[in-house]
């Protein structure tokens, strides 16, 4: 086995894992606070990718710059989705919640298909083809930027939750919904903000992925699945767990191609998920973060 190939694959997987972590962060935050699994998560990310591409094609705005606009728009979308749909199903049985959110996923996917069509869109961006040699390995610049920004955004969200009043209220509501209600927290608005932050995270991740891969309206579902695996691995509701889980899955999938055919690389992620569910069902960081 070529050690440089292993090193190259580990690096690529690690950098990609940062973006996986950011995608899963939104899912984990929403679950942690509202106990709802957003099955429209991947489709929302794809919607954000197309928003970013539209800003690039129409306004010449690079995805790294349009990231802020896309995240803001997705915050609004997330807030609206929570207030209009999700807020009404919070007390319903889980099976019924799943139906509504899967339905939302279908609406997002088909909406994207109607607006932008079914083709793979991958317009040129300034840094899409940049890479540099670092010793024996090649470092993909857009992947490195995506990794750094993903870590920065994750830390900002953590700081927001720890240091601001709204953040503290969100954590209080996550710990005890009725307790928070009793002490006068505007719980509906708070849940809207929380869902908005989750959507903004996945929106930012979508913009970061534009220089890395072609966007296609129908590509969302696997990202919902991989976020779900990461959240289970890291611990449901744990934000640090989502980040670490993303890094583990990124490296594992990439290194898995050394030993397994590439077409089976998802087997690695799901095997890890099954092992975690068997031996540490609360996840690596379950109950903390």
């Amino acid at each position, binding site marked *: 086995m070529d050690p440089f190939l292993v090193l190259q694959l580990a690096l690529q997987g690690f950098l990609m894992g940062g973006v996986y972590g950011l995608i899963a962060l939104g899912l984990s935050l929403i679950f942690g606070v509202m106990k709802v699994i957003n099955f429209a998560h991947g489709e929302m990310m794809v919607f954000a990718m197309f928003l970013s591409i539209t800003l690039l094609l129409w306004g010449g705005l690079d995805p790294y710059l349009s990231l802020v606009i896309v995240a803001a728009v997705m915050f609004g979308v997330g807030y609206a989705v929570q207030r209009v749909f999700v807020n009404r199903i919070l007390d319903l049985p889980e099976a019924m919640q799943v139906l509504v959110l899967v339905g939302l996923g279908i609406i997002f996917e088909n909406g994207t298909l109607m607006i932008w069509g079914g083709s793979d869109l991958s317009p040129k961006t300034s840094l899409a083809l940049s890479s540099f040699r670092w010793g024996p390995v090649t470092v993909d610049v857009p992947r490195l930027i995506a990794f750094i920004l993903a870590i920065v955004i994750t830390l900002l969200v953590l700081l927001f939750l720890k240091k601001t009043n709204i953040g503290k209220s969100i954590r209080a509501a996550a710990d005890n919904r009725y307790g928070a209600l009793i002490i006068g927290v505007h719980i509906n608005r708070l849940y809207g903000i929380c869902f908005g932050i989750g959507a903004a995270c996945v929106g930012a991740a979508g913009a970061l992925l534009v220089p890395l891969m072609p966007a296609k309206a129908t590509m969302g579902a696997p990202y919902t699945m991989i976020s779900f695996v990461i959240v289970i691995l890291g611990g449901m509701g744990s934000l640090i767990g989502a980040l670490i889980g993303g890094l583990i899955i990124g490296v594992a999938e990439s290194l898995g191609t050394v030993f397994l055919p590439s*077409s089976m690389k998802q087997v690695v992620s799901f095997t890890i998920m099954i092992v975690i569910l068997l031996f540490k069902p609360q996840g690596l960081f379950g109950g903390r973060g």
Partner: protein
Amino acid sequence: MKEDQVKPQGIDRRTFLKTSAVVGAVTAITGFPTIVRSQPKEIVIGSIQPVTGPIPDIGIGMQRTNRMAVDDINARGGIKSLGGAKIKLLLGDHGAKEEVARAEAERFIKDGAVCLVGPFLSGPAMAIATLAEQRNIPFVIDVAAMDAITAKGYKNVFRCFPKTELFMVSIGKFLDQIIQEKKVTIKKIVVSNVGDAFGRSQGAAFIKLVKDKKYPFEIVDHIEYPLGVKDLSAEVAKIKAAKPDVLFPVTRTGDSKLLLRELYKQRVELMGIISPGSPGWYEPEHIRDLDKLAYYVLNNVPWVNPKSPVFQDVNKRFEKMYPGQYLDTNTGWGYVGVQVIADALERAKSTDPAALREALRKTNFKDHPMVGGPVVFDEKGDNINATTALIQVLPDKNLDDRVKVVLPKEFAVAPYVFPWKQLWDRG
């Protein structure tokens, strides 16, 4: 006063309606006038393509040309031998799933379809073929290459597109010609393919060809990845480590873009890319998004014949209807599939499945826009004159004119470039 009321004389409104209903029913049952009953106003055909799922772009394009062919046939007076009966096209979507393809086919048969057309993917083609054989309804495959679809000898299945075996015969000839003409020595190659039914079948057939023809080069790696993959960095790292001279990929749209960009970023040196035959390299979005990176890839596909007047006419109208698009291997065969059915209906003079099947078996359809001879089906339903051309994306100011036929000479419009300029040396 009731007794004093005067009843109207003659036939009243209710009696008139009752009588008319009885006369109408008797007319319908006895078949008078017979001319109305023997000439159907519409002939229903079901088109099933992957309009959603991982490759909706191709499915949408193919359904467009299925529909365009129907519109052309109806505009020139429908099926004349059936009194000018118009064709009605039912549009179905299999979403790249076998079970959905079968369900859609079942629905169309229930809705009165006399023939089915589609479905771009080999897996769904197999599912529809089995059902068509059970229900005894002719099924004309416009695009799907896997050999196994027609290997069972189903009597209702007809394929316009070349089967995998024919792709391999052509790529073998082209490869011999390139090595001889360009005097290149290829020592190591990598074969990659997408992991769906077509990709696996095409990849395996190419590997078999290399072994059977005892080419002097070694296959140093064979890489397979799932359909709809969004990251090929690990796979390209493996290709780089294997140090091949030429890469032979079987792709879908999307993965071809990822592959070229990763080859660029990881600076993988190659003599070139030669696809044994697959989509991904000639679509307008690919040419536009990748610009110079898309140049010089050679691809062995049953392409349109640029010299054919039928192609020029159909393509001109297609480009006008769908700006930024042009007729390619899939949309081109999508047009042919429906035209072949209409030609058979014309000769069958009937919509009876047995008559239509017999007419399809005797097909000799010349006026099509693709490379190769007239569409003629063998006993297994394969088009014996289907063939491929080698195409290459070459620099041209007009994005729509960058895909050129380069081999064989009879269809070629430009000389081919091999070895290529490295991806990062293109200015």
